[in-house]
């Protein structure tokens, strides 16, 4: 859907040109137009969701739907900056709407207070991209599958303490362009005497090269077989965060929530239990997963089609300050 730019969207207004100037200078006018033609769904409006909402709205997407069925609590209010202080008890997405809209009046910001699990398949088909936070593994796998058939981009992400992850599925055939410096041959306009005769790289001139890569489904990415030799040998270079993610997703499925500091004792026990189970099922040792956690993560994926996208996981470890991109699934 965002591969073609609709006729009406060809013109960039003076207002947009002025406001988006600094980003147009980075990713180009074409990418800005694509953004401006994109409709995005964002599920979950806690800390991570608010950040994603802010970034997408500032970037200038056509529309952003904020979907969250939960209510504002003191905890959720302190986690993000869009909800006003007197909004306890209101729906989280609804409470975030006003401030989100004010970030950029040119974006259509909408609210949906339903639970994402209750949405029929065709609900998702109206979007060009879907961002899922705080969702169960089953839901994410389901949404990812049905979006793949429609070439809708899917991004999943969560934050746990000092750790965070992001997963992206941009489809079997994702097209993008890369800017490469142009090599100029022969004498050209630059009047540099003898040197002008040699072919040289002109730092000011670049050329756009088209590329295609493929992404696997979330299901595949989470069901990697670790029992074969090849996988085992790659273990050393595999971020532990991948396994942490597996454990946390299972915790979320079993318990219906994430580990909480309030129930530290009970949760830590359950967590370790699940860790043992999950790793055993994978045929791996529990030693793979130390107990460290997340703080911040940004989902900063652009749908501008520019540059090689990160493929397909991004793991952030706030204690080490490291951010790693890695691929899991069939290549």
């Amino acid at each position, binding site marked *: 859907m965002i591969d073609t730019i609709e006729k009406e969207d060809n013109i960039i207004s003076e207002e947009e040109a002025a*406001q988006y100037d600094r*980003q147009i200078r980075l990713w180009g*006018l074409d990418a800005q137009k694509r953004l401006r033609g994109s409709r995005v769904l964002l599920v979950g409006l806690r800390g991570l969701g608010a950040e994603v909402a*802010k970034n997408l709205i500032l970037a200038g997407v056509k529309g952003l739907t904020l979907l969250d069925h939960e209510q504002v609590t003191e905890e959720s209010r302190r986690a993000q900056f869009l909800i006003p*202080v007197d909004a306890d008890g209101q729906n989280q997405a609804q409470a975030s709407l006003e401030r989100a809209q004010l970030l950029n009046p040119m974006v259509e910001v909408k609210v949906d207070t339903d639970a994402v699990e209750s949405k029929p398949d065709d609900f998702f088909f109206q979007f060009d991209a879907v961002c899922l936070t705080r969702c169960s593994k089953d839901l994410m796998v389901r949404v990812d599958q049905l979006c793949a058939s429609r070439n809708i981009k899917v991004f999943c992400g969560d934050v746990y303490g000092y750790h965070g992850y992001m997963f992206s599925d941009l489809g079997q055939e994702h097209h993008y362009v890369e800017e490469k410096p142009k090599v100029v041959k022969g004498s050209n306009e*630059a009047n540099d005497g003898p040197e002008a005769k040699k072919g040289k790289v002109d730092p000011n001139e670049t050329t756009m090269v088209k590329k295609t890569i493929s992404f696997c489904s979330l299901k595949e990415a989470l069901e990697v077989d670790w029992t074969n030799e090849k996988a085992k040998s790659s273990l050393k270079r595999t971020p532990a965060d991948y396994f942490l993610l597996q454990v946390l997703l299972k915790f979320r499925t079993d318990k219906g929530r994430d580990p909480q500091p309030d129930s530290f004792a009970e949760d830590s026990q359950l967590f370790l239990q699940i860790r043992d189970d999950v790793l055993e099922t994978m045929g791996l040792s529990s030693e793979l997963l130390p107990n460290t956690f997340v703080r911040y993560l940004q989902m900063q994926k652009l749908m501008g089609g520019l540059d090689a996208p990160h493929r397909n996981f991004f793991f952030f470890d706030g204690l080490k300050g490291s951010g790693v*991109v890695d691929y899991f699934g069939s290549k």
Partner: protein
Amino acid sequence: LEPTMTQLVGPLRKELADSLFSCRVLVVGAGGIGCELLKNLVLTGFKNIEVIDLDTIDVSNLNRQFLFQKKHVGKSKAQVAKESVLRFCPSANITAYHDSIMNPDYNMEFFRNFQLVMNALDNRAARNHVNRMCLAADIPLIESGTAGYLGQVTVIKKGQTECYECQPKPTQKTFPGCTIRNTPSEPIHCIVWAKYLFNQLFGEEDADREVSPDTADPEAAWNPADAAARATASDQDGDIKRVSTKEWARSTGYDPVKLFNKLFKDDIMYLLTMDKLWKKRKAPLPLDWTEIQQIESSQEESCGMGLKDQQVLGVQGYTQLFRRSVETLRSQLIEKGEGAELVWDKDDPSAMDFVSAAANLRMNVFSMNMKSRFDVKSMAGNIIPAIATTNAVIAGLIVLEALKILNSDFDQCRTIFLNKQPNPRKKLLVPCALDRPNSNCYVCASKPEVTVKLNVHKTIVQALQDKILKEKFGMVAPDVQIEDGKGTILISSEEGETEANNNKFLSGFGIRNGSRLQADDFLQDYTLLVNVIHSEELEKDVEFEVVGDAPDKAPAPSAPEEGKNIANGNKDSAQPSTSSKAAAEDDDVLIIDSDEEPSSSTMEASPESSNRKRKHHDADDAASKRKRLDQQPSDDDEDIIALD
């Protein structure tokens, strides 16, 4: 299991929570990084925050400085940022200053109020200054910067890490006068020329920034007397140097046609007589106003697809633009009255039109492909592209480092680079160990010392103060004594005291080869010993050289070259670093400080014009300084700590 920061369990966590609640932090800058940082600080639980920014809000800020809305354009960034934050965190205790951090009010005592300082700046002068203040007050400083998709965070702690100035940073690229005036070969040369031209015609004239053909060009090896007879010099007097460009322009009533013909025809023909220059170069082709008018005015396609600004016009188009902008600027001058001067401002449409037109006409003369106004503006205004997300990531990393510092986990602190693509080790975020201070650092060493090569017979005291001590060595208000046994005072930071010395040559004070000067900046608590080496063999256009400096490098490409990423694996974690140069070459990006051209006479000017701007700064009293802050908005663009 470690819980999230806002909900704390266990004795250690409680200490950290308490310190967040009670500590006072200073945020310098409320722009791209600043907005994200303020949000992060209050959400994390920091209670006492002071934020300072001299800038006002511009519409181009709104794509990322999310605490600001359209209705806030023109207002103080620090003030509006504070108000916006209080709306989602009313219990935060925020003090906002609409002011320059270089104002002497913010002295060591002021800095000592804080447990931590975090920079969110966009220019080197301020970074140097805050670096020194934090060293002087012994307060930890978190430095950061972004440009496009790239970013960087680091921690500076006196005595434990490198300071901001331990490693020399590439200075902003300047071009030799003869390249600008005689033999431009790249669009940037023409753009710089056009900016000089703007000032010569409409603004403050600068003897160092001439636009007319440079007859003293060593490459021309040209006999003045001889060529004077041959030249079709535009000036009636026959000697280009005697009448200033502005005087001449005034005498013609700023006639666009006359200006055009002088700049793009007569002066070019003059250059052509310097035939040695064109032996190996393509000779310039003069333009003629009348001829251009007669060209079939081709319908320059107004392509609805792109931005109007991104069109590249033809010679005729730029000629029209030249004429229109000259006429507009002329009326602006008239309006301002006798002796008025305009100040270059990339956001002033006519000023930008003028530079765009003049630069392109010159490019055309010198057979270069012309550029759109959009591109010219980027180059002329040193605009750095910027987006919200990079700043958000960096601001997040800043807070994580802040927590380590407050938790006294100093050995966990790192320099972290944010790249555009993962490196061969799959890292998008690359942490590197912090380096120990450079024992020869001219700022943080115990007795900082430098050696400067200059011509004592040709360097005046004012130049020593402005170009060497302030611009090069980052002092704000230097006091200088000669170590001649008598302690002769050469420069006093007190206004008026040593004004009489300004235009005298250094040699007039007995300064010669081997002399030593003691320069102090009391605000920065900084003493620098300057060893003078007299030299008569400096390159043309070079007033001084700092001995031991690496030669100026051209700006590096902004993407890390894959070839360089030979795994300096030990850089990537808690192991001690072997050399900071390795860190720079490994995974990070060599990023150049690039001060964006401010839109009016604000404090933080780019090095190009900083001389004049700083002069204004000194001469004014506090009241008018503050007043200037309320003038036109100036852009802020984050630049980055450069590593060599």
